């Protein structure tokens, strides 16, 4: 069975539910303290939270820890690397994904269910979605306002949309460029998402749309 590491930095707080969602998607998962080696794993997930209390900038200090060198190797080797929320911030800070996540347009923390349109179904994380599919997941962040100098070079995975999949200003909760909610690297094996798929992996919690992302990732790693 393929096995994923869920990296825990001081201040990470979405590790348990992320581990649970990966297991539900059919893989092994293990929470790994950031001082541990990643050598026995087939993929790595950087979960949400407030690593190092968001000191300096969200994700900035975690991105400079030794374990990130190993994460970079995973990325280079084409293995799946997923960053959720604070994990996404770490991946941009580490240079594994382009652009940056700025403070929300209305500068405060916002926890809300949003609709997303799937823009790219060719990545290891989105292969089980239909092109243009509209899905629901919650966001929970203060710094999710995505920016890139040249957005045409960004591989967009999810965009904030309305219920019908229209990409509108009203549907954009944080001011992100082009309503960007999730992006992948050129190769597709590194994905960062501000919405939390692990919080949308249980029908009792309001949606299982996020579980599809983990299923895609597990299936892809298996092959």
């Amino acid at each position, binding site marked *: 069975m393929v096995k994923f590491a869920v990296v825990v930095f001081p201040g990470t707080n979405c590790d348990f539910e992320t581990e649970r969602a990966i297991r539900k998607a059919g893989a092994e998962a293990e929470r790994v303290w950031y001082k541990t080696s990643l050598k026995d794993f087939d993929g790595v997930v950087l979960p*949400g939270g407030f690593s190092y*209390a968001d000191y300096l900038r969200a994700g900035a200090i975690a991105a400079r820890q030794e374990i990130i060198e190993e994460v970079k190797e995973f990325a280079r080797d084409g293995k799946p690397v997923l960053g959720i929320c604070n994990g996404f911030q770490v991946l941009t800070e580490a240079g594994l994904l382009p652009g940056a996540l700025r403070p929300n347009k209305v500068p405060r*923390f916002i926890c809300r269910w949003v609709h997303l349109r799937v823009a790219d179904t060719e990545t290891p994380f989105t292969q089980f979605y239909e092109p243009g599919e509209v899905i629901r997941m919650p966001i929970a962040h203060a710094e999710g306002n995505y920016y890139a100098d040249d957005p045409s070079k960004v591989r967009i995975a999810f965009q904030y949309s309305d219920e019908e999949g229209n990409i509108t200003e009203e549907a954009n909760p944080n001011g992100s460029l082009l309503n960007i909610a999730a992006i992948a690297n050129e190769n597709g094996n590194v994905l960062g998402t501000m919405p939390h798929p*692990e*919080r949308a992996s249980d029908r009792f919690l309001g949606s299982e749309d996020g579980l599809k992302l983990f299923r895609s990732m597990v299936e892809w790693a298996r092959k």
Partner: protein
Amino acid sequence: MFPHEEKLIRERLGREPNEVEKAMLEVMWSEHASYKSSRPFLKLLPTENEHVVLGPGEDAGIVKFDDETWIAVGIESHNHPSAVEPYGGAATGVGGIVRDILCMGARPIALLDPIRFGPLEKERNRYLLQGVVKGIADYGNRIGVPTVGGETEFDESLDNYTLVNVACVGIMRPEHFVHSYVEEAGLKLVLVGNRTGRDGIHGVTFASEELSENAEEEDRSAVQIPDPFTEKLLIEATLEAVYTGKVRALKDLGGGGLTCASSEMAGKKGFGAVIYADRVPLREPNMTPTEVMISESQERMLFAVREEDVEEIGKIFEKYGLEWTVVGEIIKEPRYIVYWKGEKVADLPIDLLTEVPTIEWETRPYSLERDVETPKISFSDAFELVWSSPNVLNKRWVWEQYDHEVQGRTVVKPGRDAAVLKINERYGLAFVADGNPNHSHLNPYHGAMGAVAEVVRNLVSVGAEPLALVDNLNFASPERPEVYWSFAETVRGLADAARAFGLAYVSGNVSFYNEVVDRPIKPTPVVAGLGKVELEKIPGFGLEEGLLIGVVGSTKRELGGSELYVRLGLKGGIAPRVNLEEEKANAEGILEAIRRGLLKAVHDVSKGGIAVALAEMAVLGNTGFTADLSKVPAETSNPLEVAFSESHGRYIVVFPEERLEELKALFRHFAVIGRAGGSGAVFLWNGDELLRKPITKLREVHESFPKLLGEEE
């Protein structure tokens, strides 16, 4: 401390206490730490039943959820510090209650934050609200414990003040339960977490006095500094330590700091403690032994472990980068001894710190209830007034700043009658807090019973069987005879109501001296409740096209303290009475209807009465309705009284027509008042239109809370 107390201490010691001893005694004998004025009454509360594992007396109560799962629960107030420094006060309130849950061996899984302020027209009150919400959000979000609800209310009596209560639940396995007290001598006392500084010096003493006009300048140093980053590490490290099975006792350092934690831990079963105060890691230079002993610096825990286990436990703390020190030990003699650089600086009989004599103040009954004539205003004016009340508006602005989804358990989200947290694949834990100071002000006994009744209705409305209660009693100075009487009446009401439902209080908190410059607050008992719910059975909340709308329970002319009267500035009236028998029968009827799957949606009727309850369900379900209020089972035929009375024991139920007969049979007072559908809210009286409003308009007003803060969104 009062002069007679100082005298008592002198007599007991046969000498004057020295400076260190005096400071420690002052802290431990403060109202906030000792409950000296409240204990005689709190004895009246029921604290035991088949669900209770651990009642009041330790840092949190424990309730049995199933054979493998216990729930720890507690409630706290942080009123005084939040009124002086809203951000730090509210944040450290969250931190404190989370550590109370943690030190039972439980993982904190949810918070509720009932918060109250003065009118938002005043800048100072807006500042307090914004600071408190940001404090709760920054702390709760960073430690990864979801804030899933709590009330946000406003009242002119709270001008320039705030009541910040916070309740927390945690989940644990029975084998991880750790007591707050030791049962053997020789144990080492390990202090772990943040360094000790000069913040929160005399915090409990300050919380046991009225605030003066210059509180903001004078009392800042009594407010602690929040550090959620360390708290999160402390949560993980503490649980890892607890899971070794080698922790003999565990307490957090809160009010009263090291003195309170160590003396209570040692003294409860008759042991003593020696503390080497100079070993405590300090944040600032030149601190005195007195400051070290009573500082309320946050994010600190005190572990009692056997000498041979100290290293193993210490390694766990080091993994998380937490500083730890052996600061003392448990001794057989029941004394409390403090050393400072080899010199004995305090030596007291330990019970002098932990067993504080009670005080019974004078009581003086009062009655504010006067029957007043219901004002003759139009239905539509009354509705506009109540629907636009800050107390009724949607508080999305507040709870969207809280991460209410972290940990992936939040089944029923904020904004409904109660939150539900997933515990296992089949069952969830319902969690809610309620209080109604306007009712309590008019009639403290029925106001308190009403708070319990509302908690029960809110639990039942999400399909939950009530399991247990906790109470937080916010009052002005007990030295005022009227206040002390209202306190006694409140406890009596809480006790009677809980007994009627077969419920017990497993933990609680009392906060006295809530007044600014001689202005006492209204009696504000806040009750939080837990319930167990089958996840598949949770009913909806919003209206759905074509379904029938029914009202359960009887409506009386009970507008005293109602939202309508508050908005009209009417002070009198009769507060709603709780008919315990009917309240209980209706709760059981609703649960039975939910079990049988008869209902599509349920909402309890409380603030704003039937009119508000219906409008809320319409907005949430994005569906209109036509309801004839003359059909409501009522002891009055005045449309205003039927629509806005806040009588207890009532629910709005929404169901398919074919379920009508079966449903009707479950209740004594029940009537179908209309049907859901369309895009407008239509209130009728005997077929004549009272009011017609498009749902879009209702929503616009309902979502307008940010405008009161001068914000667009």
